[in-house]
């Protein structure tokens, strides 16, 4: 023990341990963490797994592995509780959520310590970040429960929600999932990560403490197998998952065709962009909050640092000096910046990636801080000399090490930032507000922090683009993911007429005076199908009424390429897009008679009404083009938090057979109004309407490539679109089997897919065929944080 005068010279911090006595007593009383099902704590039957404190390697207790029977019981309990929970007045649900928020606050010390023991993250973070955000989430959603009826009128809860959460923010991710689900009137079956089950069980006890009705929250512990049982259970209506992109893909495939709602919050490799006019000290501190936060086990961590070349030497010198101040050790010590990573297995994975990075030629800089002898500790660091081609630049390390790159111009920074399959978050550092907002607008990420990083609030939607998943958590948008619009379900859609007649057909036919050549429409040009084939189209009476181009794989490829090139459409003013749509309506009006006649030949029950509805719908979306706005959200003081509705980019649209004009346009219009470019597959049975439609597009000032129209085998083309990595979202109105097929095929780039389950729809009914739901589905929210202060 040094004397006071010795310490006066060394000025070391000394130990500052947080007491873990109460949390340890709780753990001793819970030697085996079981499940919480229907309001009962049950021990669990499956072979238990060890729960280890990664900072000490000590086995804290065991956790049950949920069995099929236990999942079944939990889903049944949730199902039984759901109608009653949903039937409660919003105010009654608000009282429960408020009680949960209050009780989280009343147990904040216990929960913080328990989380630290289980996960290895520092007590500073559990105490100052995780647990306060948990409480904030329940408060915020108590509010949504209170105002649900007026704010979301016409929407209903989804039902029973399966929720699978990760180990990096165990209690916080629980709150992000449970709070909106309950506020909206759903009940849940939640599976914590097998590595970190403790705070979820403590939360279950809080549910019991506040008297939450039995079955509203059910917790089933276990590993991936238990997760798969929940995901695959026919009794759940929605699955919300946070975790790795790989597991996200598996779940996407598993749920394909199930009709279950899905939201995925997956991995990231988020850019952290430092411009030469940034406050470099602030940016360096940003790195601390980005990649050296939570041991780097953060899906939205700024893990790719991009620095403008001129300031790179100064920036890296400052970063190295700052890294030298980091303290790594006992996470219960209040002076530590970093604790242990979650497990030795995770540590080995990180280490292997770091080795690989060095083998590829990058230089690894590590903090000099000594590491404890025991426990899964990982020295923070960063790479220099990494190139985009290096695997560490592309792979999520999920540890406290960032890669770095330099850039020369803002354009290059944006290009490098977007050179990733992920799109979760981005951080932009510049004192020039013009530049910062330009970059924020152009970077493909669900969350952008300007001169800040890793700031969260329950009112600010959080979620990804691209392979970082879809769906949002937090705010109004997060609530929408737990609500559904109950629409009348039509009869199953009949199979389309075949496309097999590609050889001369000698039967009866309506022949025009001059032969009409129906082509496909790609990049503003009429084109023949690459395969050199057309199929005979038949009218309502079965007679041939013409031939449509039989598009194939390569036509999809060409169409998507043309759409990708037409990126300017998303950048023009909303007024501009509205003008084009109004003009489109005008031109449709001029050719009204022609479309009425063509629809009549297809057997439209009321072709006049369908054309009229199409023109009206075009006006409606023209009107919405400059009105479907984002918002400025009240989050923290002195922060402007903007939510912006951004287009996906290239959307694939597969039109229904019923209402061949109105159905097709009901998909195309919202996509165009919000700034997307589309590759649309026209009705397989009635494709000739598309031929006339592209003539209208051509005369309506629509830039080349913004709409591309294909005709042919619906499901064949849909599959190519679903698999295409450039297509960012897909709407499919075909059969139930086709819906399952495209959902499976979409797992490649995890594009959000919207299908109608293969049910006929009354497209003339505005409640079914147009509305904000369509606009919402055509956009993804980007949340931009801009802290301010002189």
């Amino acid at each position: 023990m040094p004397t006071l005068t010795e310490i006066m010279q060394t000025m070391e911090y000394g130990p500052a341990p947080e007491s873990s006595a109460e949390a340890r007593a709780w753990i001793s009383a819970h030697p085996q963490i079981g499940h919480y099902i229907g309001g009962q704590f049950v021990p669990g039957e499956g072979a238990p797994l060890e729960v280890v404190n990664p900072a000490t390697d000590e086995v804290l207790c065991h956790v049950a592995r949920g069995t099929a029977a236990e999942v079944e019981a939990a889903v049944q309990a949730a199902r039984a509780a759901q109608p009653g929970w949903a039937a409660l007045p919003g105010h009654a649900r608000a009282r429960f959520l408020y009680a949960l928020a209050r009780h989280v606050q009343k147990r904040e010390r216990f929960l913080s310590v328990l989380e630290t023991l289980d996960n290895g993250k520092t007590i500073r973070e559990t105490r100052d970040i995780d647990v306060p955000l948990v409480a904030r989430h329940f408060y915020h959603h108590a509010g949504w429960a209170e105002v649900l009826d007026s704010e979301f009128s016409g929407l209903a809860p989804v039902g029973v929600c399966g929720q699978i959460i990760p180990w990096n923010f165990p209690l916080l991710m629980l709150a992000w999932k449970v709070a909106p689900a309950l506020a909206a009137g759903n009940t849940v079956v939640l599976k914590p990560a097998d590595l970190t089950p403790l705070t979820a069980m403590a939360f279950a006890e809080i549910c019991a403490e506040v008297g939450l009705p039995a079955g509203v929250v059910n917790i089933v512990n276990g590993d991936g197998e238990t997760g798969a049982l929940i995901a695959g259970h026919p009794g759940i209506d929605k699955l919300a998952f946070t975790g790795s992109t790989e597991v996200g893909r598996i779940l996407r495939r598993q749920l394909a065709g199930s009709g279950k709602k899905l939201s995925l919050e997956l991995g990231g490799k988020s850019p952290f962009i430092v411009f030469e006019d940034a406050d470099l000290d602030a940016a360096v501190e940003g790195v601390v909050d980005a990649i050296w936060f939570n041991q780097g086990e953060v899906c939205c961590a700024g893990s790719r640092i991009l620095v403008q070349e001129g300031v790179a030497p100064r920036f890296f010198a400052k970063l190295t000096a700052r890294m030298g101040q980091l303290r790594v050790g006992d996470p219960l010590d209040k002076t530590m910046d970093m604790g242990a990573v979650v497990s030795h297995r995770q540590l080995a994975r990180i280490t292997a990636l770091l080795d690989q990075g060095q083998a590829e030629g990058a230089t690894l800089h590590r903090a000099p801080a000594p590491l404890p002898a025991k426990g899964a500790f990982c020295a923070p660091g960063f790479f220099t000399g990494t190139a985009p081609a290096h695997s560490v630049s592309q792979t999520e390390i999920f540890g406290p090490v960032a890669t770095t790159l330099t850039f020369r111009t803002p354009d290059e920074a944006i290009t490098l930032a977007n050179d990733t399959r992920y799109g979760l978050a981005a951080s932009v550092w510049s004192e020039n507000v013009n530049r910062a907002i330009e970059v924020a607008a152009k970077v493909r990420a669900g969350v952008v922090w300007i001169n800040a990083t890793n700031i969260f609030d329950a009112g600010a939607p959080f979620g990804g683009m691209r392979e970082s998943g879809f769906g949002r958590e937090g705010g109004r948008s997060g609530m929408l993911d737990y609500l559904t619009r109950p629409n009348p379900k039509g009869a199953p859609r009949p199979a389309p007429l075949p496309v097999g007649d590609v050889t001369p057909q000698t039967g009866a036919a309506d022949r025009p005076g001059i032969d009409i050549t129906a082509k496909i429409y790609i990049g503003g040009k009429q084109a023949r199908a690459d395969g050199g084939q057309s199929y005979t189209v038949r009218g309502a009476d079965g007679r041939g009424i013409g031939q449509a181009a039989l598009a194939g794989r390569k036509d999809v490829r060409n169409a998507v390429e043309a759409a990708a090139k037409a990126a300017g459409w998303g950048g023009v003013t909303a007024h501009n897009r509205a003008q084009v749509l109004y003009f489109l309506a005008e031109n449709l009006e001029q050719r009204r008679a022609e479309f009425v006649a063509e629809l009549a030949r297809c057997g439209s029950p009321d072709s006049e009404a369908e054309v009229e509805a199409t023109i009206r719908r075009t006006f409606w979306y023209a009107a919405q083009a400059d009105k479907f706005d984002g918002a400025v959200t009240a989050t923290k003081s002195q922060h402007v938090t903007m939510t912006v509705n951004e287009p996906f980019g290239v959307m694939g649209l597969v039109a229904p057979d019923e209402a061949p004009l109105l159905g097709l346009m009901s998909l195309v219009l919202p996509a165009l109004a919000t700034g997307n470019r589309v590759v649309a597959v026209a009705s397989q049975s009635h494709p000739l309407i598309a031929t006339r439609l592209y003539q209208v597009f051509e005369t309506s000032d629509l830039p080349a490539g913004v709409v591309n129209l294909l005709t042919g085998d619906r499901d064949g083309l849909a599959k190519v679109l679903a698999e295409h990595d450039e297509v960012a979202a897909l709407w499919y109105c075909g059969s139930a089997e086709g819906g399952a097929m495209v959902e499976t095929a979409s797992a490649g780039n995890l594009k959000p897919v919207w299908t109608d389950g293969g049910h006929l729809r009354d497209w003339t009914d505005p409640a079914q065929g147009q509305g904000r739901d369509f606009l919402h589905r055509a956009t993804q929210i980007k949340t931009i944080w801009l802290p301010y202060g002189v």
Partner: protein
Amino acid sequence: MTDHFPRMTGTAFTPDWFEAAVVNTPAAERRAASLGTRRTVKKDWQAAWLARAITCIDLTTLAGDDTAGRVQRLCAKAKAPLRADLAAALGLEGLTVGAVCVYPTMVPHAVKALEGTGIPVASVATGFPAGLTPLPLRLAEIRYAVDQGAREIDIVITREHALTGNWAALYDEIRQMREACGDAHMKAILATGDLRTLTNVYKASMVAMQAGSDFIKTSTGKEEVNATLPVSLTMVRALRDFRDLTGQWVGFKPAGGLKTAKDAMNWQILMKEELGTRWLMPDLFRIGASSMLGDIERQLEHHVTGRYSAAHRHALA
């Protein structure tokens, strides 16, 4: 220790080092707020840190009603900042504050009272606190205070130069003040509460260091806003940049508004985290305060006895 650190020479006026500088205020505020949550000191370490803080205090009286008697009382406290039994229990006999800080006319009283202790007398000068008397008078005031035995001079800058971006004028003025100080150490008070923006604070810090200040100091204690952590963070980052550019180590003195032992530790953590341990010593770090010492004494008594203390058990300054 006070006189051991080499005098600063400053540099030529070099606007390149600060003209493009920007400080992001929300980021500075976030960092300042997290310093005290990322670090803490407990038990013996806390006692040692507080004892170290005492050695850094410029025990100050700067009031219109100062008298020889008032200054003598302050000096007595400066010599024996801890009650004898506490100092003995802590093994800290002989501990003194860093300096005593007074108005120029009070310097002779302080010098006399501190004779033989080695505790330097610091004097404010240059038309403190507004600094708007004519420059020759301000320079004469410095020379007067030095003549009277002040070994440290706390000058105030002309805020107008900073607020109008006339950095060359600011540099020239501080240079002349530095000359007038002779061998006495010069602390440049930036009056950051008047400068308002952190970017201004950074620039003024750089100019003051280029002009040869031995210390830069936040406030006179008379501005509406005195030392804050974000302002201090900005100034110590300027110190670090200046050290990296020149190899010269300039000291830092927050003043005004630091009243509690907790404040002392927050600022010490700031110094250690941003600059390193060396910058915690009194030749590079001073705290301008009067009431803080009393709170530190009570904390140290609690450390010794385990009982919470009361102000009246400790001698007044």
